[in-house]
């Protein structure tokens, strides 16, 4: 039996070790190299003395730069803030949707859930493209506002923070609705009936029963939106303004435009740590509550 188990495990274990775990070790080590001309554009970490003995040439400059230059620190803080606000917006829109789907007649539920998931299965890039069409100076929203006489000149909507928040909220909404729906659908209806029998109004019953019991779903949904949004590149690049320098975008620029692989690696290491810390705090707080 044990040998059969190892046969099942061997392929995924070896694959994930090689293509997921090992790359992180490499990123970590490249973060300590110096940038250099050539292919690949970094100097080797392990070098040889003239007498043939090896030594490690550690370069801490990349990490020092990340902490000394306010540009990078601000980008990190901005990424965390944008991700948190977007996740809150998803919660605001997604929670009532999930609740409505749970309370809808049973024969509608599958179709309504399907409608929530459908956009997720279509192209992410093309959904962002739709928002460019909506928001640009001669876009659908501005045309409508001009035609209605609300404004006299087009309002700048694209390449603003508003556009970025709308884009992130739009693309990640299904990730909020699904986990909240999952916890709400397991909720015991008799609790709400008991509250009603004891004279609680629907709002009171919601605040003291439904909301606290759906907290696990809220936390799961918040994390599912927050974590990928912190490293988001496409939406700030296509919808945000030039000052919307989120950390994913900064990493992209360092890598593709400045060809500074060591600095990009150092950024990836710090981003990973920056993600683990708020999630840890969040979960510790959730555990205490």
């Amino acid at each position: 039996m044990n040998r059969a188990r190892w046969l099942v495990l061997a392929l995924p274990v070896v694959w994930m070790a090689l293509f997921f775990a090992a790359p992180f070790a490499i990123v970590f080590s490249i973060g300590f190299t110096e940038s250099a001309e050539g292919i690949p554009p970094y100097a080797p970490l392990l070098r040889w003395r003239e007498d043939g003995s090896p030594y490690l040439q550690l370069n801490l400059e990349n990490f020092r730069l990340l902490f000394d230059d306010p540009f990078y620190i601000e980008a990190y803080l901005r990424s965390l803030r944008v991700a948190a606000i977007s996740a809150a917006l998803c919660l605001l829109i997604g929670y009532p949707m999930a609740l409505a789907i749970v309370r809808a007649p049973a024969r509608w539920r599958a179709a309504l859930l399907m409608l929530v998931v459908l956009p997720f299965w279509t192209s992410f890039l093309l959904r962002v493209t739709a928002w460019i069409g909506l928001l640009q100076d001669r876009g659908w929203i501005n045309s409508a506002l001009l035609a209605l006489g609300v404004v006299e000149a087009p309002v700048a909507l694209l390449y603003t923070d508003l556009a970025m928040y709308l884009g992130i909220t739009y693309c990640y909404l299904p990730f909020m609705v699904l986990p909240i729906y999952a916890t709400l659908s397991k909720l015991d209806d008799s609790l709400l009936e008991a509250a009603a029998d004891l004279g609680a109004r629907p709002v009171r019953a919601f605040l003291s029963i439904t909301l606290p019991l759906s907290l696990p779903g809220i936390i799961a949904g918040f994390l599912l939106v927050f974590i990928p949004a912190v490293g988001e590149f496409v939406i700030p690049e296509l919808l945000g303004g030039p000052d919307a320098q989120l950390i994913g975008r900064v990493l992209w620029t360092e890598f593709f435009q400045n060809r500074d692989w060591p600095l990009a690696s150092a950024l990836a290491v710090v981003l990973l740590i920056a993600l683990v810390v708020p999630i840890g705090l969040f979960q510790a707080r959730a555990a205490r509550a």
Partner: protein
Amino acid sequence: MRRLKLRLLVPLGLGFAFLYLPILLMVAFSFNDSRMVTEFTGFSWRWYGALFANEALMQALFLSLRIAAISATMATILGTLAGFALFRFARFRGRALFGAIMAAPLVMPEVITGLSLLLLFVGLESAFGFPAGRGADTVAIAHATFGAAYVAVVIQARLADFDLSLEEAAMDLGARPWKVFCVITLPLIAPGVVAGWLLAFTLSLDDLVIASFVSGPGASTLPMVIFSAVRLGLTPELYALATLLLVAVALALLVALRFGLAPGRAP
């Protein structure tokens, strides 16, 4: 029969309007006669013709479909084995670590996954000469890796409502473990395997960031071509492409529902 209260119906309607209005506008304007992407002048199929005549886009589409098919198949094999092991093998050394590594790609920012895989491929090439250069192969390996994590989740969900007594009955009747797996387990989790394959296929077809890192010259996937086109400005061709994709996905979902695959399970 219960009816939905107005105070829930309104946010549900607004939420769906938010989700679908941008998509419906794109569909409508894909049939616009004018090159203007906002003013509707008349009905026309011309942008669909232009789309199929666009060689760079069509080449990228076929490359992406090929990568998606290969990587989804690899992801399904890896993810099914991993999901089965995680759900069924109660205790083995390193189980917690293995579980964490299988789940990590689900939440890892794409820029980190892309960068780290590229550095691995560069390191492997300089050490062993393999993979020689980067292109469709390296993109397929990268997509199989994160696809496997999603497949593992789908398989575990499928195994969770699996009746163990069927396997026990087969074993009581003398079937060997391998035979039990092939004759009982595999057919019962088959809908999960198909759903996982479809999910991995879609994710591969949709990925821009990881592919941009690990691809090489001459291997531009569909999202890479769309991304550079969008940066130059919108064209109705892109709307036509979005419409065709939407129709394909809706048809696939209807077929999936018909056969009880329940894609709502996907994360």
